[in-house]
Structures are given as structure tokens and as C-alpha cells.
């Protein structure tokens, strides 16, 4: 089998995952796109393991490790998404902006120290 077929398929699958990560709003769908990208990498590892045939079988061993790490990642990621949903009431990554800098709040002169004693942090809306 030509090495080109699995390599091109893995590249295209990775780019589909990139599109999903950038374009989705729901955090769970974003995690699904990350899984697609990880699977593209797994396909690359398997194909190059079959091509190189090294004595350690590093490709297949690393694929198994990557699958395990991906399982741990999605478990932790979904736990974090559920926690965010419980505290914020939404799972949209566009609306979770408590740590972001709003353009109106950025001081015009950065040299002047902010004299606002109000506690910063979570924006209660």
C-alpha cells in the first residue's frame, strides 16, 4: 500500500478537526473535534509504524498511549465542562469570558496604576 493514502487521510482528518475546534461553540462538540485530531495522529503513527517496522514497534506503542491519554483527557475535559455548566449555566465557549480582557476595561494609559479597590475576578451578571 502506498504510504500516501494514510498520510493524506490523516492530514485531511486533522484539518477537519481544526475546523471543528475553531468553529464550534458548544464545549462538548469542541472536545469531539479534539478527538478527531487525536485520531488523525493515531492513523499517522500506525501507518509509519507499518512503514518503518522498527524493532521497538514505537508507533503502535505510542498509539496505545495516545488512546489512553485521550481517554483521560476527555474524562477530565467533560468534568470541567460540567462544572462550568453548573456554575455558569452555559456550555458555550464564546460566553465564558470571565477571564477575558474587555476592550472597555483596558486602561487607556497603561502607566497609570489602577486605583480601583473593587475585587476583580468573576463578572457577576
Amino acid at each position, binding site marked *: *500500500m*502506498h*504510504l*500516501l*493514502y*494514510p498520510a493524506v487521510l490523516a*492530514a*485531511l*482528518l486533522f*484539518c*477537519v*478537526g*481544526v*475546523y*471543528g475546534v*475553531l*468553529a*464550534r*461553540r*458548544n464545549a*462538548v*462538540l469542541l*472536545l*469531539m473535534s479534539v*478527538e478527531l485530531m487525536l*485520531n488523525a495522529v*493515531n*492513523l499517522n503513527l*500506525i501507518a509509519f*509504524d*507499518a512503514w*518503518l*517496522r522498527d524493532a*521497538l*514497534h514505537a508507533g*503502535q*506503542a505510542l*498509539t*496505545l*498511549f495516545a*488512546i*489512553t*491519554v485521550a*481517554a*483521560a*483527557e*476527555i*474524562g*477530565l475535559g*467533560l*468534568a470541567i465542562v*460540567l*462544572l462550568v455548566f*453548573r*456554575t*455558569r*449555566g452555559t456550555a*458555550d465557549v*464564546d460566553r465564558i469570558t*470571565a477571564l477575558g480582557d474587555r476592550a472597555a476595561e483596558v486602561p487607556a494609559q497603561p502607566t497609570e496604576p489602577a486605583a480601583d479597590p473593587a475585587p476583580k475576578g468573576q463578572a457577576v451578571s
Partner: protein
Amino acid sequence: MTGFLLAAAGPLDAAPRGFLSPTGVEIVFVLVGLAVLGAAVVSVTTRQLVHAALWLVVALGGLAVEFLLLTAEFVAWVQVLIYLGSVVVLVLFGLMLTRAPIGRSPDADSKNRWVALGVALAAAATLVTLVVDAFRTSWIDLGAGGGSTAVTGASLFRHWVLPFEALSVLLLAALVGAIVISRTGSGKAKPRPGKLTTRQER
């Protein structure tokens, strides 16, 4: 000796095989690959959230078939067990617990989807050009037993034992971390910022 070295380096050489006479394995690989790619594209573009998870099942199952075609049988069944068995179920539970709407949700895609499409197309063009240029003449020699379970198990437990054990500790840590993150406090209802009102405020 030189002949042995040349024979050992055989699959690394440029192969005089063309793309116009594909073997049966290649035809099956391309067909399953098209199915995987289509399912992945539908999975990242559909507006029905549960359907996206179910199309992800199709994509990951097709990838398991691709692993089988690349003679990585153990990895293929691990893929079926872990991805199709547990990850997709976790994703479905996540969709359910975050109250994903059944049916079409108009705000599934964010506003910068055209920028995302441009980035993805540019990355795809770059990667495919690079890969085609680099591996145009490479040939995988899919011999029997190259990636069988016996070979994988022997190398895994002979050369990769320490990473394997470290990975089991990592899984345990991730499990404990997920439980710690997702448990709900100590019974006291704290006032929470956000749009959800707590039970006491109601």
C-alpha cells in the same frame, strides 16, 4: 552483507509502483477513508448536537477498519473498545447533562466559522502538498504478522513497561481528578455567579 542491508532497507527505497493500478487493499482503504472523511465533516458541521456524536461513531469506527487494513489489529480493537465504547458514551452523557437541545440548534457554530474554514483549508492545502511531496514514492510492505497482537504485546511489555506503568498512574490520577472536579461541594449551597439560580433563591 551489502545485499542483506539492501534487502533490509527495501521498504524504505523508492518503489516503482504506480497509482494507476491500485491493489485491493488500497481500494478498500480509499473507500473507507472517504466514508471516514465524510462522517467527520458531517460531524463537525451538523447543527444537531446528538447527530454530531453519532457521526463521530461512524468516523471512529471507520478509522478502526483503517487500522485493521494497516495490520494493526490490537490497536483497532482497542479503538473500538475505548473510543466507540467509552469516549462516545461519555460525550453523549456530556451532551445530555449540559442540556443540549434535541433537534436543530441554530447557534451550534460560532460567528468566526468562515475564518475557521479558511484556516482549515489553508492547513489542509499545506499539509497535503507537503505530504504528497515527501512520501510520493514510499511503499508500505504489509507483510503478515507485522503488527499482530503477539508482536505488539511483546514489544509493549518488553521495551515499554515503564511508560505503561506511568500511564496507569496517569489514568488513576485523571479518574480521581474527574471525581474531585465533578462532585458537588459539601452540601452547602453557595451563591453562584452565573445565570443559574440556586435552589434557595427560588
